[in-house]
């Protein structure tokens, strides 16, 4: 098992980072006053760890015994209400009335809770919310001792839910709140509608600070019986981009590569980040449509390998900023934001990333000509 998983705190008490949140959650559970919860924060901050620990706090070890279920749900959809895309319209012209939709959904469930990822269903996610979640929420767990008379639904990646699905969600949240608590988990709360947010207790899970990361690394080092030089620890933490998962993985990588740690041991970088910095070098070297074409090919390479376009853009910006004169930084940042916004509006990310690159090239070239003639 990787250290990430091995040393993941299982209970709220054992939390090293986010102790405060953990204590608050514990208090909530002990007072039997658990509202709907919305955990949000950057990846690698510890949202899911918190959620799992919370579940354990609520239901005891029973919550840990989960099984995977891959079930196909049959959802009856009436004709008028289901057209969520033009193509569906075309598809369904011939069929009037209701139709059965097959939705495949993987759930993790224990006796007390169900974890699912509704955004897996793509644009059909609202049926998951409307039908499946409602179905789950309706049924009250049997052991009604008066105390734990509710089950918990953990919905991951809520920010990827479509607007319609989120709207459907809020009614479910109200109606079945007696028998069911929702724990929502997402990266950015800004993409969760106001209505849903206001029905939840929002828990912001910050990315751990570097000190916290170092503390965790030291803890792991102690457990593994390793001596971690402080320099290395802080460097790993600095490189980890404040993602605890990354830091621990890097730590283990270092351990694997060379054990008796040295103070200035190289921390292996992420490959895609290396690649992005190569792209940045390409961009700075030459500004022309030809070079842009080359860059496009490289960007495609990144996108193909499942790296989210926003991340690529962000990383590219930061790499470019490193090479930039300070007076341009502001403008470049502005344009990066501009194109990221557009990227979220559209669907072909490559257009927008490329537009940013072109814009940067244009600005940079102009700058070069102005300064050096």
């Amino acid at each position, binding site marked *: 098992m990787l250290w990430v998983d091995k040393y993941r705190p299982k209970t709220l008490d054992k939390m090293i980072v986010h102790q405060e949140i953990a204590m608050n959650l514990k208090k909530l559970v002990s007072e039997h006053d658990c509202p709907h919860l919305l955990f949000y924060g950057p990846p690698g901050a510890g949202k899911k760890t918190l959620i799992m620990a919370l579940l354990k706090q609520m239901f005891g070890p029973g919550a840990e015994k989960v099984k995977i279920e891959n079930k196909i749900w049959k959802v009856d959809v009436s004709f008028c209400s289901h057209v969520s895309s033009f193509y569906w319209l075309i598809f369904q012209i011939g069929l009037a009335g209701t139709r059965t939709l097959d939705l495949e959904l993987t759930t993790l469930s224990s006796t007390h809770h169900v974890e699912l990822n509704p955004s897996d269903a793509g644009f059909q996610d609202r049926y998951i919310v409307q039908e499946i979640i409602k179905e789950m929420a309706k049924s009250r767990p049997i052991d009604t001792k008066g105390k734990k008379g509710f089950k918990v639904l953990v919905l991951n990646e809520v920010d990827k839910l479509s607007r319609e699905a989120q709207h459907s969600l809020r009614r479910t949240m109200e109606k079945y709140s007696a028998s069911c608590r929702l724990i929502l988990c997402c990266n950015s709360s800004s993409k969760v509608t106001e209505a849903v947010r206001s029905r939840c207790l929002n828990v912001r899970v910050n990315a751990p600070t570097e000190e916290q990361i170092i503390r965790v690394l030291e803890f792991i080092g102690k457990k593994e019986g390793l001596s971690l030089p402080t320099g290395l620890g802080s460097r790993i933490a600095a490189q980890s981009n404040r993602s605890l998962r990354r830091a621990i993985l890097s730590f283990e990588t270092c351990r694997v590569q060379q*054990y008796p740690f040295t103070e200035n041991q190289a921390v292996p970088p992420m*490959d895609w980040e290396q690649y992005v910095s190569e792209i940045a070098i390409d961009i700075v070297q030459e500004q022309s449509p030809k070079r842009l074409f080359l860059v496009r090919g490289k960007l495609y390479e990144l996108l193909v390998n499942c790296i989210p376009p926003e991340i690529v853009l962000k990383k590219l910006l930061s790499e470019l900023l490193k090479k930039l004169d300070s007076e341009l930084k502001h403008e470049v940042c502005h344009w990066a934001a501009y194109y990221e916004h557009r990227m979220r509006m559209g669907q072909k990310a490559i257009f927008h990333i490329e537009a940013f690159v072109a814009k940067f090239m244009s600005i940079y070239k102009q700058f070069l000509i102005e300064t050096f003639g």
Partner: protein
Amino acid sequence: MDMETDIPLPDELEWLESNALLDQEPDLDFYPPFEEEEEEDHLPEPSAKIPENQTSKKRPRSNDDDYDASSPKGSDEKRSRKSPEAEPDEDWLRYSPPAAAENSALDPVIDAGPADEVVAPVAVEEKVLSRFASEIDGECISVTGPGGDRVYAKMSRWEMENDGKRLHVERPLNGLLSEPINVLIERVEQEAFTKTLQVSSEAVSESVHSNIPAASEQLWVDKYAPNSFTELLSDEQTNREVLLWLKQWDSCVFGSQIRATTDDVLFSLRRHSSIAQHQKFADGKSYFSMNRSTSLGSQFSRQSNGFSQGDGSLKGISESRNKKSPGNNPPEQKVLLLCGPPGLGKTTLAHVAAKHCGYRAMEINASDDRSSSTIESKILDVVQMNSVMADGKPKCLVIDEIDGALGEGKGAVEAILKLVAADKKSLIGKESNAQEAKPGKLSSRKGPKASTLSRPVICICNDLFAPALRPLRQVAKVHTFVQPTVSRVVNRLKYICNKEGFKASAIALTALAEFTECDIRSCLNTLQFLNKKKETLNTLEVGSQVVGRKDISKSVYDVWKEVFQKRKAKRERKSTSGSNSSATDFDFLYSLISNRYGDSELTMVGIHENFLQLHYHDPMMQKTVMCLNNLGVSDSLVQYMMRTQQMSLIVYQPSIMIAIRSLIAQVEKPNIEWPKSFHRYRATLMEKKDILKLWHNKISPSISRHLSVESFVECSVSQLLHILSPPTLRPVALHLLSEREKDDLAQLVDTMVSYSITYKNLKFEPQPSMQRHEEASDAPVLSFDPPIGDFVNYKGYHSGHSGLSLAMKQVLVHEVEKQRIMQESIGRLGILNDGSNSEGQPFLRGESTTELSIKSKAMTASVQSYTVNLKSTSGLKENGSKNLAAPCGLKLKGPGEAKKASSGSSSFFDRFRKSSKKGSQNDNDHLQQPATVERDSRPFLFKFNEGFTNAVKRPVRIRELLL
């Protein structure tokens, strides 16, 4: 009935009238249809008397039985009624007298007969009916026949007196009007009828008149269709290429050397731009001396290198020229494919060229039956048979509109391909120096002569990229028709206009030509139409005028081309006429692009993928930025449209493209490629996500729930790869590893198992030839099973990941497999024992001793052999760490491995038994003995390869082996 239209002759009518009153009654009695006939004859009398008839009808019928004598007559009459109506007169003649006689005979029987009946005999005596009123004494009534003849009938007095009732009925009918209303109506109708008849007959004669000149006047398109090669309007380059191609058939088709065009001629054909000149050459006179042509040939080959299509054939020519004996070589590509927009003269060119070269063009076009079977026989007919017609010309097949051939019609393409393929085979066999692209040389000389292509085939299409043509495109010589220059078209139009005496200014003609995109057919039709209408061609109104816009289906390629390529002529005009032309330009583009709404996304992707290849001047990258901005806008528009279902927004897509065009369009021809990378990107992304998802599902939930598919590559894959391939792990036999290394290995295996990663035999080369070449390829290449290594495999990037050595990987595969099985069985045991403190322990204890002995034996018996260390559970417990031992030479278990060495196993076991007796380190011998006996009695399930591998197997559980 004939009578309807027959207007009775006046005398006949008169006769009829005179008889009418007499015969009326009996006729009516026996066959009422007569009444109809008479009505249709427009005789007024019977209709006037219909009421009477109706009232009197029943009586005579009831009387029919009374006089049998009349019944046969009646039947006779009935029969005669059925007899052809052509002779009604005869009926009248024949039957009226007996009827009259009958009437008279009936008279006594009839007590209260209608007045007419009584009148009838009287009327014979008296003059009742006359042309002149004066001839009739007493009251009379005027009756007008349809012809306008008027007769006067005497009014019978008896009628009035005897049958007053009847009269009352009759009076109002003919009393107030001088003629009965029916008569009037009839007359009016008759008049109308004759009038229309007259009019129509006039019209017929008129239309006949107008038809005659129309028939004599051909369509201008046909009338001025070029008859000779010189008159062709299409691009000279293309014309000559086609002619050249056809000429290359000469030696093959016409056979004789005399008629065959010499190569020099072919060269000159290529070389000379003047059509008139090469026509001379086509006659077969060699113009250049041999040595001169060589230099020319080489010179020309240099020139024509630019022509992509010309290359192959040119080489072929030069080669055959070197050979000096052309023999029967048809050209390289047996099929010529002409493509281009409608109305440029493709069909005409094919026909004219074929005629010019002495062929008779046989055309198969879309109107013909194009199913596979018929077309094939047709092609074979044309291509292989010699014409038996008088002229004895060989045929040349022209398949028109081949791109329209879909479904059934694909037969044409298939048939041709079959012929070409058969041809190629035989050709390869025949000529070694033939420039064949196909590598596989079939040295069979007996190419099926029956189905070779020995006559030129010209295919014509509009859309070169029609799916049906895809295979044909590869074997055929393709010529794309380009628009002839406007001036050329205008000249021709002018000439025709002059000939026809139609006045049209050059400007107007130019406008027309431009509007129709040099579609000569459309131009001519328009002109002819205007000529007919006696109108003049108006420059300004060309657009709105009669000229119908062609319904050109443009492909996406055309759209892209239009976006990327500026037209020269257009630009010139822009400088002269300013904003006006740019507006029409806009309109044109807009309509062009909007015709392909469904493809707007594809169009955008195509623009995106190609526009960076253009050579637009953009020193500061501003144009590029704007282009990409526009593309971005279009993208978000599409997204918005999809999300909100406001499809009407799609109308704004073309304008975005036009904006892009204004930025980057160049005069030079763009090199447009089909956009692949975006779709490839999409497809691979899906694929990789699926891989990740599958993998994700395999990992146990306690781990996988913290590992999102989306962020896996972003934040863990690199480290994971590093962790999975530790450089410190030495590829040595496991028992040689130090404690710490063993520890590391155990951890690695544990990680791999918990993340369900293993190595898999990826590239397995089965080819024996390859094995001979390099020994290394024999060994399997192992790579990660969920191919997570691919996620850092970027193009042009060298990742720092060093994989493990092959031996190490093999060890890992084995260990992981072992570990997995172990975990599964432990899990099962855990379920079985359910709560017992140490899982599986009591279960295994009974056999642990035997296993120990096996282990020790194996170790001592074969020092040099690699063995599997069958570790007992107790051993595992003692060590605390997993002392996993496996040989590096361990092979993956294959089915073939266990085949041989049954002898080895037996010998091994002999030794085993011996040694087990001898070296009894086990303190529990008493347990051992029956165990071995029992063991030997059981059949062997696994076999042992002495000196090499690893297993002595008896019916034991895998679990026991592993622990």
